[in-house]
């Protein structure tokens, strides 16, 4: 690791020092940033510790649920409001990382974790995300873990967060503190597709501090399922995941929220799947037809083509599971 200065920030937002230069960074749980620093991928000269700025905790508000950016994943999972009204989020988090990492990692940090693409994580190989213009070896290399949706000739790295997949399905917003006030950015607009600037991953501006994520009331209290597929039974990022939340009234779908992980360069909402569900009467054929829309627009590589059927089947299975829950309600 390169030498850096360390400062612990407190709750006083007005006087706050900001990570607004390229060589400064916030650190919250540290569970991704320290990996990046140990492996020489990130080398900040100033580390601003935001773990005690007081942004932790979950609050049920009139128009939705707010999860503080500093909330540790474990605390979010165990929060009664999250458990009762955002089960999709709780399930996605419970399937993330390990108990130890969940005790450290924060909601804000989770959304900003960097990709697991093998080339990004190995500083000796080119990577456009790490070193713009150096190339993307994943295109014709080991791309089993890479994206089949949203990629470009410059980058096919997946976004690794499970939480973000659940949240994008729920129309969540990211609450950001800027020097001149607070902003709210829809998670759906928060991440950038790689295009020809894969090193720019979000629409955050230098110095922006995430203070919370907010899930609007309409997306809460839905029956849901986060189905995560991986090579081993636990402690692995998603190969493919499906986040599904539905409301079915009298056999008819009145709310459908579907997204997928492990497949997109950003957390991938599946509006086409939702369209094939909304207003329809639930039956096996409808669910299957809807799930098949998940494969719309895929651009697989030889190493990850298997993710296409896996995605469709995962979505189908998750839809069926939620439909069953709803019908049993």
């Amino acid at each position, binding site marked *: 690791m390169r030498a850096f200065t360390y400062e612990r920030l407190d709750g006083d937002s007005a006087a706050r020092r900001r990570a607004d230069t390229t060589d400064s960074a916030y650190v919250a749980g540290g569970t991704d940033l320290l990996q990046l620093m140990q*492996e020489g991928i990130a080398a900040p000269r100033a580390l601003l510790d935001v773990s005690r700025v007081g942004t932790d905790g979950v609050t049920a508000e009139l128009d939705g649920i707010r999860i503080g950016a500093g909330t540790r994943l474990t605390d979010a999972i165990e929060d009664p409001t999250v458990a009762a009204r955002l089960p999709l989020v709780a399930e996605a988090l419970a399937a993330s990382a390990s108990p130890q990492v969940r005790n450290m990692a924060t909601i804000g940090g989770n959304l900003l974790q960097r990709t697991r693409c093998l080339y990004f994580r*190995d500083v000796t190989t080119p990577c456009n995300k790490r070193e713009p213009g150096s190339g993307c070896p994943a295109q014709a290399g080991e791309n089993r873990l890479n994206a089949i949706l949203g990629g470009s000739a410059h980058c096919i790295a997946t976004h690794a967060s499970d939480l973000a997949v659940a949240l994008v399905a729920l129309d969540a917003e990211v609450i950001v503190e800027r020097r001149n006030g607070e902003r709210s950015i829809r998670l759906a607009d928060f991440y950038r597709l790689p295009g020809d600037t894969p090193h720019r991953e979000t629409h955050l501006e230098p110095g922006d501090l995430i203070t919370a994520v907010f899930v609007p009331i309409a997306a809460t209290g839905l029956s849901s399922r986060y*189905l995560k597929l991986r090579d*081993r*039974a636990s402690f692995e990022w998603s190969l493919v995941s499906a986040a599904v939340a539905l409301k079915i009234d009298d056999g008819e779908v009145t709310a459908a929220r579907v997204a997928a992980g492990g497949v997109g360069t950003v957390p991938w909402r599946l509006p086409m799947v939702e369209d094939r569900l909304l207003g329809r009467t639930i039956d096996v054929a409808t669910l299957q037809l809807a799930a098949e829309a998940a494969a719309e627009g895929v651009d697989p590589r030889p190493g990850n083509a*298997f993710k296409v*059927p896996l995605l469709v089947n995962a979505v189908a299975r998750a839809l069926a599971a939620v439909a069953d829950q709803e019908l049993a309600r």
Partner: protein
Amino acid sequence: MNAPALSAVIGQPVSRVDGPAKVTGTARYAAEFVPDGLAYASVVSATIPRGRIRALDTSAAEGMPGVLAVVSHRNAPKLPYLERDQRPPVDPKSGDQLRMFQDDKVLFNGQPVAVVIADSQQEADAAARCIGIAYDETEPTTTFDPGRGRPPSEETAKGGRPGAAGRGDGAAGLAEAATTVDVTYVQAREHHNAIEPHATIAQWDGDSLTLYDKSQWVQNVVVEIAHVFGIEAGKIRVISPFVGGAFGSALRTWPHVTIAAIAAKMTGRPVRVELSRRQLYHSVGFRPHTLQRVRLGAAPDGRLTAILQDAAAQVATYEEYAETTLQPAETTYSCPNVATAYRLVEMDTNSPCPMRGPGIVTGLYALEAAMDELAVALNVDPVALRLKNHADINEKTGLPWSSKALKACYETAAERFGWADRIAAPRSMRIGTDLVGYGMATAIYHADRAPAEAEVILFANGTAVVRTAASDMGPGTYTSITQIAADELGLPVEAIRFELGDSTLPMAPVHGGSITLVSVGSAVAEACAAVRQKLEALTGEGSIAERLRANGLDRLAASAKASPGEETKRYASSAFGAVFVEVRVDEGLGTLRVKRMTGAYDVGRVINPKIARSQCIGGMMGGLGMALMEAAEWDPRFGKVMNANLAEYLVPVCADTPALDVTFVPSEDTVLNPLGAKGLAEIAICGVAPAIANAVFHATGRRQRHIPIRPEDLIGT
């Protein structure tokens, strides 16, 4: 004292004697010694697969805080690297080992090219990243292309890894067969990934060198480093009381041990070299990527008429590591016609090395998967096919087995598993969305023994110390040897302290190949017998303590050496086993979970059933990883393993654990050694991967002829 002592502790499920040290964190592993003035090293690895170092800029690094030295080929001492009279069994028989910082050549991506030594690990690591290296690259050879395979050299062949072997006439046997299979299997490159990283602390005191090292063979480290530096072996001491797993990766003395000694010499400080997880993928060995073709022929009654097995394995360019991959083809079954062909495929990579069950596990994977295919082709039960072809003698050597209870293994495991409930047709068993598959395979691993020495000291306070330079990387050597000594001396386990892992102790062979218990155990038993003889020559009666005191002695010592004898010329020895597996496959989601595994083993006399069971369940988990997860993702463009960590190189986690059932069938092999044991580290991983692969076929009706078998292979179409 000639009659063996009444067995009071041997065979008992004694808890590990080193258990309290391990569970309290007081057991000390190589990186954890703290000599005064310890400095820290960070190794710099090459980033090209082949070429030369054109320029090396160390100026920035040298000026960084805390940095004591930067060592590379430019300033490292020229080392003699003397050739050893005889290469140790853990080293390749031909080629040249990697030499540290002796020239500007880069032979593979990841080769150590420099080392930074600093006051702290943080400072060393930071400086290591600031070393600028320019290379002249030459065209590397980085693809695994079996077409380029060449036979092993003469030295390697003489070492039991011939290019061709067999008996009878393979082609004729195949021609006369009523049923044949001809199939090709691929096995991925696998890494040991013991949880303890390799580490060495080197400390010079004048011209004497102490090394705290992660090692499965401390005395070989002494000889090796003596040859590298051209110094007397007597000046070197290697200490390694605990080894945090190794599975073969610490058999050899790897280059980082030399680096530690160079670094300590050049800084005049004790230096610690601890490799990062990423570095482990190119700094020690691995199980080589191997492709195998198996052709089997059988008569209508299922008797094998031919076994033809060819293997092509990757190998480094500078050194020739070869495996006994094709030995199971010659020994597992009775068959008049056997032909094997072994090829090595040179690549610019670090050198592979033995990994648990080396060679055998690889060959057995292909052979046992092919036997399953033959059973299907013949429409016979896989167990029945194996019984039909049971090898009553070792047909490779023509020698009788010193003991063999394989039939009992099949019978016991099948019974406990409930094999009779299997519906033979594939895809015929289901639970919910899961297809259910049952599969089985034979396990075999040759049982060897090597000379060993031990010393036993009795004390007047009624305790005893047993000493030998063995290692315990986890199989329980500390405990089982203590049990043997307890029985031989008639003392309680608590009264005995067993010292190992120090090169100054009596001679012990390598801690590998499942030979430790029988080799070292036999020496300890003899040393105990010798000391008892001395004791009996003393006057007086009563306990050991009483007799020593009666004779005015505060201690009584004896040493012994035990060696295998003529029996190895008259008998073949092997451990055997049968492994049965149930898998559940969800084709929609590409998920495969091993539900349960049953193994029955013939390992001779079991010294400690509790620890022996642990060995077996550990082997089963290792086999599960091999079958379903473990694969180095090699990118030929860079000539390196891309998933060089523990997040993307997957090994089983707790949630992957199936129900595991282990039985030891009654067996005793007093021919191999007086203890009657056969050793069991390797046998436990043998047969697991093919049993799983065979179960996957039974579940899905689709043959996967490669491991690992992953979601992409299973997802239904």
